Each structure stands twice: as structure tokens, then as C-alpha cells.
């Protein structure tokens, strides 16, 4: 309770050159997102995206226990992709990471590119593919939407943690077994992903019931039929 923790890479864990390379990757990735987001953003999506970023900031403060002495919090990639789409969604998560780094000294400044690559870019990319696929194969119901959020969250969070493993393989500052690190992270992040998935599912199902028209994924990946199920609720 005394210390709000966050799951971001601190300075010094990954060496300078590799951190710099990932800063370049992050900036390039975000530039592509800005370019594509401009097509999606309109008078309705823009304020919604601001709200999604603020909501992710809030929920990232809520660490939940996953094992004795270990916690985790939502990263937000899947939630953002479902509500505002992949390009705007990645920008929402990046906005949160930049605010956290610059104002709350959470996540190293040198490590900002690494954190953006893992949580905003990998997180949103994984969620995009999974959400687009799952919404097409799962039942066109609120339960189907919830299940999509849950499954995409678990896989997205584990993949984001594997982004760290790749960065550590390239520029880790201590000699440790990569297999051991990967196994520990994958295990813990599966549990964190389940927690994230429950929060994301609750959130998107709630929005889908109140304002189905504000859920990007339902507009983009699941054309007409859903609207009826949503507005009836």
C-alpha cells in the first residue's frame, strides 16, 4: 500500500545503445500510428481516446496481487484497441507511458523507448490481430466481446513481456540465463494477463451496453448485427 508500483523498465537494466535503438523504433512506430490515427480520428473518437488514455492511467495505478509478494497491473493495449482502434490505441498507451515517465518518474527516461515498444507497440499490435480474429470467430454477443477482451489481454501481455526478454537478450546489463528470465516473466505475466483481461472485459462490455456505437472494434470488425444486441441491453 505504501508504494505504488508499476511494471515499467527502470534505467540501467538494458544498456544505452540498445535503449537508444528502441527509442528510434518507438518514435518511428508512433509516427506510423499518428499517420494512420488521423484517418480514424473524428469529432467522436478524439474525446473518447482522451478518456481511454486517462482511464488506462487510472487503472495502471491499481496493482493486484498475482502470487504471494508479486503484483501486476493492466497494461491497456487490448482495452485501447477494442475501444478506439489499433493506431489511436497505441497512442493512448504511449501517452500514459510518457506522462508516467516525465511526471511520476515511473519507467526510466532512458528506457522510455523500450517501454513504449513493449506496451504500446507490441501490446496494440498483438491485440489488433487477436481482436480482429476473435470477433470474427466468437459468437456475436456481449459474452463474445468479453471473451475476446480476456483472451487477447492474456496473450498480448505475455507477448509484451517477451519484448522485454528480446531487449534483454540484446542489451542486458547482467549475465543471467535468458531462458530462466523468459520462463519467470511468461508465468507471472500469464497471471497478470488474466487480471488485465477481467478488467478489460468488464470495461468493454459495460461500454458496449451503454454506448455500443463508441466501441471501435464493433464498428470495424463486426459490422451490423451487433448493434441490435447492444442497444437492447
Amino acid at each position, binding site marked *: 500500500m505504501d508504494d505504488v508500483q508499476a511494471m515499467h523498465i527502470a534505467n540501467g537494466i538494458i544498456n544505452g545503445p540498445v535503449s537508444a535503438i528502441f527509442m528510434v523504433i518507438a518514435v518511428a512506430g508512433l509516427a506510423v500510428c499518428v499517420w494512420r490515427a488521423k484517418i480514424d480520428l473524428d*469529432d467522436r473518437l*478524439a474525446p473518447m481516446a482522451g478518456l481511454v488514455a*486517462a*482511464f488506462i492511467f487510472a487503472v495502471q495505478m491499481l496493482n493486484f496481487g498475482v502470487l504471494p509478494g*508479486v*503484483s501486476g497491473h493492466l497494461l491497456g493495449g487490448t482495452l485501447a484497441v477494442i475501444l478506439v482502434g489499433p493506431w489511436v490505441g497505441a497512442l493512448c498507451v504511449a501517452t500514459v507511458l510518457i506522462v508516467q515517465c516525465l511526471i511520476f518518474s515511473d519507467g526510466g527516461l532512458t528506457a522510455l523507448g523500450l517501454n513504449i515498444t513493449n506496451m504500446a507497440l507490441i501490446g496494440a499490435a498483438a491485440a489488433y490481430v487477436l481482436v480482429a480474429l476473435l470477433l470474427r470467430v466468437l459468437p456475436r454477443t456481449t459474452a463474445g466481446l468479453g471473451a475476446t477482451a480476456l483472451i487477447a489481454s492474456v496473450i498480448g501481455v505475455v507477448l509484451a513481456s517477451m519484448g522485454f526478454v528480446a531487449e534483454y537478450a540484446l542489451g542486458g546489463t547482467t549475465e543471467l540465463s535468458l531462458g530462466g528470465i523468459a520462463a519467470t516473466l511468461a508465468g507471472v505475466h500469464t497471471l497478470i494477463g488474466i487480471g488485465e483481461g477481467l478488467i478489460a472485459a468488464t470495461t468493454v462490455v459495460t461500454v458496449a451496453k451503454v454506448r455500443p456505437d463508441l466501441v471501435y472494434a464493433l464498428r470495424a470488425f463486426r459490422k451490423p448485427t451487433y448493434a441490435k444486441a447492444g442497444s437492447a441491453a
Partner: protein
Amino acid sequence: MKKFLIGGLLVALLLAGVVSSFASGSPDGLDHAAREGCTFNADDEITGGTCMAQQEQDHQLAGSPLADYALRGIDNEYLATGLSGVIGVLVTFAIGGGLFWVLRRRPRADG
């Protein structure tokens, strides 16, 4: 839309301002993995072993008045965490919302 936005922001403010004080203070997944292999004393300083956290350095902006989700000058933990959460939600909404508003498609002013 306005009602939805205000409702959503209120939920976010409640989560960051109140619920945040009851969040788990244990090391998170990445931190846990970073500490694995090292031993720590009561002050959380590394006393031995090999782990990723060994080379960890302080944040360049650790002196920020809001560093670590607290508020300089406020000793009450609940109040400090809650206020920093409220500030964070509002700042994120302002920056994110402002950025997205600027980037949005606009109907051409003169067709």
C-alpha cells in the same frame, strides 16, 4: 457523448483518487523477475547475488514533485497517492484529448 465522457472521467478519478490507495504494494511481475537471484536488506538494498536489478539506476526525474505517485509536502499517504492519481488522470486526459483533437479529421471549412 458529453454525459458518457463525464461519467467515464468520474470513474477514472475515483479509481486513481481513492481505490489506488488500496492497490497491492508488492513488486510487480517485471520487478519481481528483476530482483530474482539477489538478496535484499530491510531497506531494500541489494546485499548479494546476481540479478537484473543490480545495474538499475535512479530515474533522471526522481526529484519531480509527483515522483513515485506521491506529492511532495504531503505526508498522508492516502492523500498523496490519491491527489497524484487525480492530477495524473486530468493531465493524461488533457494531453491525450488535446493531441487527438488536433489530429482529428475536420470537415473542410470551405468545400
